């Protein structure tokens, strides 16, 4: 005790983890919905009433209440800050989601995207007033074409899956232009493909023919050759693939596809492993989307927005969607019309995800040709380091081989422990690490796909590896409770997803009035 009677050392207490009146756990504070804390007659925004005027709504004034609560500024700050504290984020620690590429998001990018000259311009302003914006789009196009070795680029697509849509629409238009629309109705996709690939093909009226993955995790030319025929429009292949491997026979596969009169779509979700190392244009690819929110570090924002520009080969360039930027000497213009051209048309209002373009260009210029290649190499080194440090405990589905930017394990090593991949992932949450991608790709049982990215330092990787090794040893020793009940320390225990789907509650509804 000090002289004022304040204890300066903790005392022994017998009651552990008491229930609190509020339900809070110190920094973990329960936060009600805005509908519980806000009031409909309250606003947190200063607005002066308009001068008296005669409305001209043509008799369509809203008659009903909306049902929107209002919060004061301090209430709003507290609500959203408290909610934010229930999220994990790449700024807190490793986020090794394979295929998702959670790399550091440099804050310079955010600052640049908020310059009024980019953030506060309208897509339909006169083009004479947005020459700098068009120049930025031209700059992004320049880099994407040089880095991929391709012929043309479409900037419109708003996400990776939208980019797939764009590439496959270009392919469909090219096939129609050859007069083969009625006959080429099949798209080949490996079993290991992202779900978006078959979903995209199906949405465009193609049927999907699955290609098996070989025992080495790769697609084999003989399997592609067996599936090819005059009915095939395209193959959709991910490279590096979803098992984290470079498709060794990709050039031969491309040749087979082209010989059969089909096109080669490459899912570029994993382009971040090969930027500055291999140009997709040198591999025989006809179309590939690039996730700016993966490879070029634009933030994921809790699920979006993304951006998915598509690069096209000379075979497909003419079919690219509008709009696009054209240089006319010193002046830049926007081509917004597809009429009278071979373009397949428009796939979204306006010109694409400009906010993401600025961030991506900021990242690209910061890194340069040298830095971009180094980032790819470092991502690949990090994944291989994790691989060699874990593969004595974890099981590798395709044997002990070099990987690209992500390393894939399966769940054979957990056999007879009673612990599943999901349990293991949830135990990682208790260790303060976001789990890796689990149960994808589907071709591997209990898949664990780890993508550390180049952002993790050796110190961070070492701690990550040590943590996973400790958990693995505990799993193999049979410490089941640690895993089956996990997470123990997250804001919520495991959530019941089955109940959520069986009787969906998708919105707040006012409580029923209590009867007197």
């Amino acid at each position: 005790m000090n002289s004022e009677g304040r204890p300066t050392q903790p005392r022994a207490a017998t009651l552990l983890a008491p229930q609190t009146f509020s339900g809070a756990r110190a920094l973990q504070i329960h936060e009600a919905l805005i509908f519980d804390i806000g009031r409909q007659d309250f606003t947190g925004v200063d607005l002066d009433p308009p001068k008296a005027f005669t409305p001209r709504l043509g008799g369509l004034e809203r008659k009903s209440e909306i049902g929107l609560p209002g919060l004061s500024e301090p209430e709003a700050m507290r609500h959203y800050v408290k909610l934010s504290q229930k999220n994990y984020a790449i700024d807190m620690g490793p986020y090794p989601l394979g295929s998702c590429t959670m790399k550091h998001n440099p804050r310079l990018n955010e600052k640049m995207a908020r310059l009024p000259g980019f953030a506060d311009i309208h897509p339909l302003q006169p083009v004479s007033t947005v020459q700098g914006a068009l120049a930025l789009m031209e700059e992004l196009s320049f880099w994407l074409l040089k880095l991929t070795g391709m012929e043309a680029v479409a900037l419109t697509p708003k996400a990776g899956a939208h980019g797939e849509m764009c590439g496959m629409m270009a392919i469909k238009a090219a096939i129609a232009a050859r007069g083969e629309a009625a006959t080429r109705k099949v798209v080949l996709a490996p079993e290991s493909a992202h779900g978006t690939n078959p979903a995209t093909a199906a949405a465009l009226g193609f049927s999907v023919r699955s290609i098996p993955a070989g025992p080495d995790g790769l697609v084999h030319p003989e399997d592609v050759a067996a599936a090819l025929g005059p009915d095939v429009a395209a193959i959709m292949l991910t490279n590096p693939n979803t098992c984290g491997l470079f498709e060794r026979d990709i050039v031969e596969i491309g040749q087979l596809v082209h010989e059969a009169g089909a096109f080669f779509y490459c899912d570029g979700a994993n382009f971040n492993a090969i930027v500055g190392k291999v140009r997709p244009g040198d591999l025989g690819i006809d179309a590939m989307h690039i996730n700016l929110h993966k490879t070029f570090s634009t933030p994921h924002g809790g699920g979006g927005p993304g951006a998915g520009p598509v690069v096209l080969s000379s075979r497909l360039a003419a079919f690219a969607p509008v709009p696009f930027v054209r240089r006319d000497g010193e002046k830049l213009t926007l081509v917004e019309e597809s009429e009278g051209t071979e373009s397949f048309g428009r796939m979204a209002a306006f010109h694409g995800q400009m906010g993401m373009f600025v961030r991506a260009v900021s990242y690209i210029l910061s890194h340069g040709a040298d830095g971009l290649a180094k980032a790819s190499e470092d991502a690949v080194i990090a994944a291989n380091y994790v691989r060699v440090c874990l593969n004595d405990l974890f099981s590798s589905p395709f044997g002990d081989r070099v990987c690209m930017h992500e390393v894939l394990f399966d769940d054979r090593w957990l056999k007879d422990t009673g612990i599943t991949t999901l349990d293991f992932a949830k135990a990682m949450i208790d260790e303060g690490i976001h789990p890796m991608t689990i149960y994808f790709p589907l071709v591997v049982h209990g898949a664990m796909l780890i993508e550390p990215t180049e952002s993790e330092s050796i110190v961070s990787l070492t701690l990550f590896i040590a943590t996973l090794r400790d958990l693995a040893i505990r799993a193999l020793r049979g410490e089941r409770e640690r895993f089956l009940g996990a997470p123990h320390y997250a804001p919520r225990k495991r959530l019941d997803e089955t109940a959520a789907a069986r009787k969906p509650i998708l919105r707040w509804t006012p409580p029923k009035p209590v009867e007197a």
Partner: protein
Amino acid sequence: MLARIGVASVNELYADAPRDALLTAPLDLPLRKTELEVERRLSALAAKNVAASAAPFFVGAGAYKHHVPATVDHLIQRSEFLTAYTPYQPEISQGTLQVLFEFQTQVANLTGMEVANASMYDGSTSTAEAILMAHRVTRRGKALLSGGLHPHYAETARTLSDMSEHETAVLPPDPRATEDLIGALDDSLSCVVVQNPDFFGNLRDLAPLAEACRAKGVLLIAVVTEVLSLGLVESPGAMGADIVVGEGQSIGNGLNFGGPYLGLFATRDKYVRQSPGRLCGRSVDADGRPGFVLTLSTREQHIRREKATSNICTNSGLCALAFSIHLSLLGETGLKQLALINHANAVALAEALEKTSGVEVLNHGFFNEFTVRVKGSAADLVERMAARGVLAGVPVSRLLPRAGLDDLLLVASSEINTDDDRAAFVAALKQELNG
């Protein structure tokens, strides 16, 4: 690290890449730059653009300049929101999930619908997806698009419809909202797509159309490109729409030269299993405490693959967050007040223009945007007004180049416009039109 991995050089890790495709030296491109250099370079590009805040600004046509409270941008830059992924691990994503649950409720209430999803890319793609959904629900394959639908939305919908081997009928541009949609209905249609306020700013009563649609088993898809209008105008849900889609950019999100924006998607409970996009639902955890999860994912591509309702994977999470924060700050009272101010400013501008010779306001009813007929080419006029420092609006011919509507100009006015802005607009217009 390389030694631990057991390779002598990093290129050994790329051994599966074709040897002649592997680059061994940096590409002939600029090398890395410092933060200061990048900032200078990009600031110089940004300085070549005229920002909306730097001129009297009246441009709309599907993207609107509004004041966004400082709180919004501060909060969306919190690391835990900005740098999180899709909430696939709900136990450590309750922040994002609760925001989405609140967002879904706000959107459902605003549109007058029973259920809304966790957002789409933007209004145009949301519209195209709604049409595909209507085909699934009705098992019919033809959509009818109103001539008042934003031309970019119509083109986007037609591209996806053509490519997915469905039919689309598009009515001619309809600047005065006189088209006969009810007369064009027949039972081969899965849906009719109508915008309100329409592209030309007209307000449309959808109730009679909704009734006619019900009689023919046709779904009514209502499109709202200026979501702020719902603070003042009757909601599409109350008028009988089956699916409401829209652009949410106006609330919480900046112009950003066209993206990223925020697709809104709302419908009736009975159609939810046919709907695209992510949904957040309430559940309980192992201790029985309430919590949120992504749900009904058996509709989605990562589970259903080629049988999914859509190929969509990404939403506009951060834009939805900005929308939800701004709308929470506004509340019912603030939203209605802001909408009223927008309408008042637009009425004031329309009245000023109606006093200007050579200008005709076409609309009967409108919210914060209307169409005027001017002498000569509206596109030329807009260029000349820009040279005088006024961003006057959008010439209809920019979006409808061969429709014979070269003399029509869309003019939008929001709370950002001052009396001085309006005076500058009218003065510049008079000088251009009448010399």
